[in-house]
Structure formats: structure tokens, C-alpha cells
């Protein structure tokens, strides 16, 4: 006889549409996989050596819940250099990838607020994390002309209406669009004016020419900054992310991390620590390569009359693409991320890489 308990349980899960949204792949499988979250670059052998040395010296046991001390320190140092913040190790929580950082911030910081304002277009991991334990959500409509970021007016309206916690991506995980320095300053002012706070996904900031303003620099006491450690370094499938936040926010997230995972994989953490020492070495070269590939793709797209969304991060681009265009992409053997999963219809997201030109050609 079928279990009624299980039937009811399954019905409850099925009704939670947020959990059914597919996530893009964590990292590219091959050159034609332009839909994944991270580009693929072969790992520097020093990163492998760092991880192997740790394992062979017996670092195979539990480590501290918030992460190994040296990695927390390295992450704080990198964030401070890139964003102008003044985080200490105690402000850093190492996570098992970016999705765990999303989950912990949304669920644990979110629990301290009645509502959370989230863009109608964002990485699908946001909706999934919200779906695990429902929070009262205030939708922040986005504007296509802004690369699917919420306008400052929409942010102001949400704050004026009582929303005191925002979740924002800058750069956008769909288009790569980022808030300008002035816009970030205005957001910080609005937070201060309303005694509000923000979760700020800045994982793609390193792919923006001349860097990307971080809200954490202007509202450090009211911002949790999340991201990968480090996006595009080659550790995508190793899953290392981080949360930088005021210590009174870190404490409950650390407790929750203990409850749901105890700690992050030691091999991954030691690899990230080794990566922290060389992350700057290859960055400019990779960024330059991406910039050239992206410029060529944009030129071709313009020639073909394709509609592009504004974007600042060089690692991806988003284009208008109807069903027929998507079929052509599929015929060309190109994998892409579907805008629908992010909340944006008729848009595709492509990684910048060797096959991006082929994808643009197919879309034309």
C-alpha cells in the first residue's frame, strides 16, 4: 500500500517550485560548454602541490568550522585589496562553494529581517536557496537597459516600503552588468538612511576592467559580501566560496555551517590557499584574453544585428535569443545558460571562450 505520509511529503516538495529550478553547471565541461558558471583554465601546478602537500602531511581531519585560519586571512587580504574594505580573518567564513554562501546568508541573515528584497532576475541559485525555507520576498523589478539590474529607484522604493534587507548581484550573474561607483555610493547612502543591510554577490567583480565597486567598502557594517575563492582560477568543481560580513553575522552563520556541514573540504581549502598566493599572476593575462574574445564577439553580434544586454564583466555576455535562435545554438553543439532560469525570458547567457564566436555566428 502506498505511503500517505510519503505522498503528502512529495506533494509538499512538488509545490515548492523554487526547488525545481535547474542550476547551470558549476564549471565548463569543454570548450563548447558556454553555459556553466565558471570558465575553465587548467590548474596551476602550484595549486595542486599545495593541496597534495597538505594531504600528505596529514591534513585529512576536521578543520575549524569557519575555515582554516591562513585561508581566512588570505581571503580577507584579497578582498581588502580589491574592494577597499578592512575585513579581518574573523569576518570571513569559508563555504563549500558559492551556493552554500548564498544559502547561509539568505537563510541566516535573512532570518533577522522580516523581508528580503531580491531582483526579479538573478542567478537561479538565489531562488533555490530561498525555497528551502520560505522567506517573505519583495521583488525588485529589473531593467533590461541596465543589464537586468534593479534600478536605484526600485531599490529606494523597496526600502521606503519597509524592506530592510537586499540581495544584489554586481556584476549580474546573467549579464555581467555592474553598478557604477556612484550608484554603489547611492545604494550605501540609502542603506544608511533606512538602517538597512545587503547581501552583495561580487564574485564576478574580478572580470570587470579597472575593477568593480563593492558595497562592502562603503557599508562594511551592513553588508555581507559573497563570492568564489576565486572565480576562474580553476577550482570551480572543488567548491570553495566565502562570506565576508560583520562578526555578529558570522557567528550564527558559523553555527549553521556546523549544523549542515561541519567544515569545508580540507583539500579544497588548501588548494584555495595555494591559489591565493598566485591568483594575481595570471589574472591580467586571462582578463586581457577574455577582453579580446568578448570584443570580437560583440563586434560580430553587432554586425549580425543581435540584441545584447549591457554588461561589464568580461567573462560572459547575454543576448536576446528566441526559440529559433536557441535551436541554432543547439545544432551548433553549443551549451548555454537559459535566461528563464534566471527569471529573464528570451535571453541566453554565454561564457566568453574560444567557442563564443561560433555561438554568435549560430545565433545570427
Amino acid at each position, binding site marked *: 500500500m502506498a*505511503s500517505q*505520509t*510519503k505522498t503528502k*511529503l*512529495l506533494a*509538499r*516538495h512538488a509545490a515548492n517550485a*523554487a*526547488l*525545481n529550478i535547474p*542550476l547551470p*553547471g*558549476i*564549471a*565548463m*565541461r569543454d570548450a563548447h560548454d558556454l553555459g*556553466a558558471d565558471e570558465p*575553465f583554465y*587548467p*590548474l596551476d601546478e602550484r595549486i*595542486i602541490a599545495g*593541496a*597534495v602537500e597538505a*594531504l*600528505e602531511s596529514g*591534513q*585529512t*581531519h*576536521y*578543520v575549524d568550522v569557519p575555515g582554516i585560519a591562513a585561508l581566512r586571512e588570505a581571503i580577507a587580504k584579497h578582498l581588502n585589496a580589491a574592494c577597499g574594505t578592512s575585513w579581518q580573518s574573523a569576518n570571513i567564513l569559508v563555504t*563549500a*562553494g*558559492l*551556493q*552554500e554562501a548564498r*544559502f547561509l546568508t539568505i537563510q541566516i541573515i535573512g532570518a533577522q529581517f522580516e523581508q528580503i528584497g531580491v531582483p526579479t532576475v538573478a542567478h537561479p*541559485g538565489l531562488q*533555490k*536557496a530561498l525555497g*528551502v*525555507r520560505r522567506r517573505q520576498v519583495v521583488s525588485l523589478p529589473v531593467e533590461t537597459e541596465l543589464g537586468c539590474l534593479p534600478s536605484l529607484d526600485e531599490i529606494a522604493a523597496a526600502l521606503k516600503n519597509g524592506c530592510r534587507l537586499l540581495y544584489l548581484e554586481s556584476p549580474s550573474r546573467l549579464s555581467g552588468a555592474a553598478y557604477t561607483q556612484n550608484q554603489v555610493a547611492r545604494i550605501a547612502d540609502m542603506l544608511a538612511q533606512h538602517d538597512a543591510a545587503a547581501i552583495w554577490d561580487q564574485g564576478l567583480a574580478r572580470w570587470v576592467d579597472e575593477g568593480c565597486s563593492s558595497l562592502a567598502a562603503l557599508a562594511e557594517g551592513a553588508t555581507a559580501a559573497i563570492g568564489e575563492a576565486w572565480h576562474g582560477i*580553476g577550482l*570551480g*568543481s*572543488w*567548491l570553495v566560496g566565502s562570506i565576508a560580513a560583520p562578526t555578529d553575522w558570522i557567528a550564527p552563520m558559523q*553555527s*549553521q555551517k*556546523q*549544523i*549542515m*556541514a*561541519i*567544515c*569545508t*573540504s*580540507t*583539500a*579544497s581549502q588548501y*588548494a584555495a590557499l595555494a591559489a591565493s598566493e598566485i591568483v594575481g599572476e595570471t589574472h591580467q593575462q586571462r582578463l586581457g584574453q577574455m577582453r579580446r574574445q568578448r570584443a570580437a564577439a560583440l563586434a560580430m553580434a553587432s554586425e549580425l544585428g543581435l540584441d545584447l544586454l549591457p554588461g561589464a564583466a568580461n567573462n560572459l555576455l547575454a543576448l536576446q535569443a528566441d526559440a529559433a535562435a536557441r535551436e541554432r545554438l543547439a545544432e551548433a553543439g553549443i551549451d548555454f545558460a537559459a535566461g528563464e532560469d534566471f527569471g529573464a525570458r528570451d535571453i541566453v547567457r554565454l561564457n566568453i571562450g574560444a567557442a563564443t564566436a561560433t555561438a554568435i555566428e549560430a545565433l545570427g
Partner: protein
Amino acid sequence: MSKKKQAAGTNLLYQLIAEARTYDDVIVMGRGDPDFDTPAHIVAAAKHAMIHHQADVAPAAGLPALREAIAARVKRVNNIDVDPASEVVVTNGGQEALFLMVLAALGEGDELIVPEPNYNTYADSLAFAGGVKVAVQTAHEADFRADPAVVRAAITEKTRALLLVSPNNPAANVISPADMRALVDLASEHDLMILADDIYDLFVYDDFVHTSPASLPGGKERSLTLNALSKAYSMTGWRLGWIVGPADLMARVAELKAAISGGTSIISQHAGIAALTGPQDAVDMMAAAYARRRRLVLDALDEMGMQYGVPQGGQFVFANIAFTGMDSAEVAQRILSEQHVLAYPGSAFSKERKDYLRMTFLQPEEQLVEGLRRMKLAMASL
């Protein structure tokens, strides 16, 4: 009361761990972290994966080859038949498996029957899910046996699931085949889900026998069963575990897994394949060592005149300290401060267990002997 003494549950344990770190000569008989390093062939496989599989991409449920290895393992060890493609989800250690299992099976107001004492994270996870713990108390005089008749009496119209951790943490009792049969029948009769935690299934002593509820008739379709490589292969830092269960429910577990952490480290997954499919002699060696150490600890406790439930499995003993007339948090604090031995207070596992200590036997024998000597001194001074 000092701030220290106000901590409870997991926070209390972390407070003690932090203090233990400040002593150079500390002997740790608290945390469930085996002293053995991960076997060399597993580390070698990880190194190979770092070079040759660094960019492998796995679905959130895990690498197909690992899920196949897990399916073969649960068939071989637990006698559970699962389809690797649809009935296995790989997790960030047993802890994430536990959290997912609770979230998948229980929601707001749902009751979970928990034989106590039990691993404190079940209560924490249940609180996150909005569920309600219904404790069924057990006694050391009966080796912490959860009597099916007592469990039956705890069932209400809101009961949705039954937690069966065998060998139990911290009580170290093993549910007998007859009791397991009765508990599965009870779950069937009342249409309850079973959350089974088999993480210590390879560490069972004397003539005791481990039985997985999902291996019994009527058990599989209503059971989610977790396990991990942490304890059996000394891989606590790798964070690799799994849940097996019926395909319909496992699809939901996979969705929750994607929502919580997105995936599991690709290197840990390759290491896991090596652990499950490679030589098992390291596991046998560790099991034999734990059996010797267990005897050593029990002899010392007998010498101190302490009472305990005989550990039928697992890697620890849950000993009664009522004779001290003190709260276990205070006793653990004094043993740590005065003798630099870390043991876990029973109150961290359950507020009903303020007169117990959990002591692990996850240290080299010479350290264990020294730890027990110091503990004897500490007990004499209380």
C-alpha cells in the same frame, strides 16, 4: 553564572574545543575524529584526480562512478538494493546528509521520534525544518536500548518519522535485529518515514550485529539512510557522505542538495571512489584498534567504579557521572582545566543527560592510557 557555563549543545562543545587548543599536552577524548590519517592509497587517488580530473563536472547528486560504488557498498555491507542513478545522492559529509534527510522528511509541526541520548545535530536540523522532537528516553542500565513498546507509546497523529541511529552516537548501542524488525513494522503500521544513520556500521563489537532498516521487508520504501567515509576511512576532512532511499524521495533530496550547496568537491568524490573500491585492510586495522582501545577504556572505567552502557558499536562510551553530584558541563570543564583531557558533557547531547560524559577511543593507546590516568585523578578530586 559565568558566560562559559551558559553555553549549550553544539556551542558548549565548541567552547570546550577552543579551550582544549590552548593546552600543549591536551588529550582529546571528545570529538569524533579518528586519530589515523586517511589511508595512503586514497590520498594518492586524490592526487591523481587533481592532475587528471581537476575539471570534472558532476551533477549535484554526485559523480555516476561514485554513486555506483556507493550502491555496491550499501548492497555488500547493508543489504540494501539501490539504483545508483536515481536512489543515491552524494553529500558534503554525513553532516550534510543528516541535514538534508531531516529537511526532506519533515516540515513545520511534524514530529520526529528520537531515542535519546542522540547526536545533537538532529535537534538542530529539526529546529531549522520547524519540526518537533519527541524524545524517547533510554537508560544505561539497559545499555540504552530503545524498547519498541516505548517508541509505540510516543507516536501521535503528528508523528511523521522515526530516527534510528545504530550504532548510536553518543550511547553506542546497536539496535538488535529483532528490535529493528519491530521498529520497521511499527513504522509500517503507522505509516512513518524512517531516518536511518548507519555511519558507524563497520564498528560493531562482540557478538552484536548491525541491521539497516532499509534491508528489511517494508523498510526500503520508507527509509532514507545516511552514511559517510569520515569514520570508516578516517576521512573527516574530506566531507564525503551519502543518502540512499526510494527514487521519488531521493529526487527531492537531490533538489535540496542543489539548493544548499550545489555539489560536492570533485576531488573528494574521486577519493571516495578509491576508498570504496580499493583495498579495505585499513578499515579492518582501524576496527581492530578500536576494539582493543574500547576494552582498555571500559577496564579503566570499571576501575573508577563508573557505570555506563556497554558500547556495542561506535567509537565512544557514554558514562554516568551522577556519583559526582555535578553537572556534566562542569565536570567536563574541570577535567579539561585541571587535567587537560577533553571529554564531551552529556548535556551537549540532551538536557536530560547532565550526568553523563562521552569519551571517544580515537587516540593512540599510549595517549588513551595517559588520558584515563588523568581522568581518574580528576574524578578523585571532584
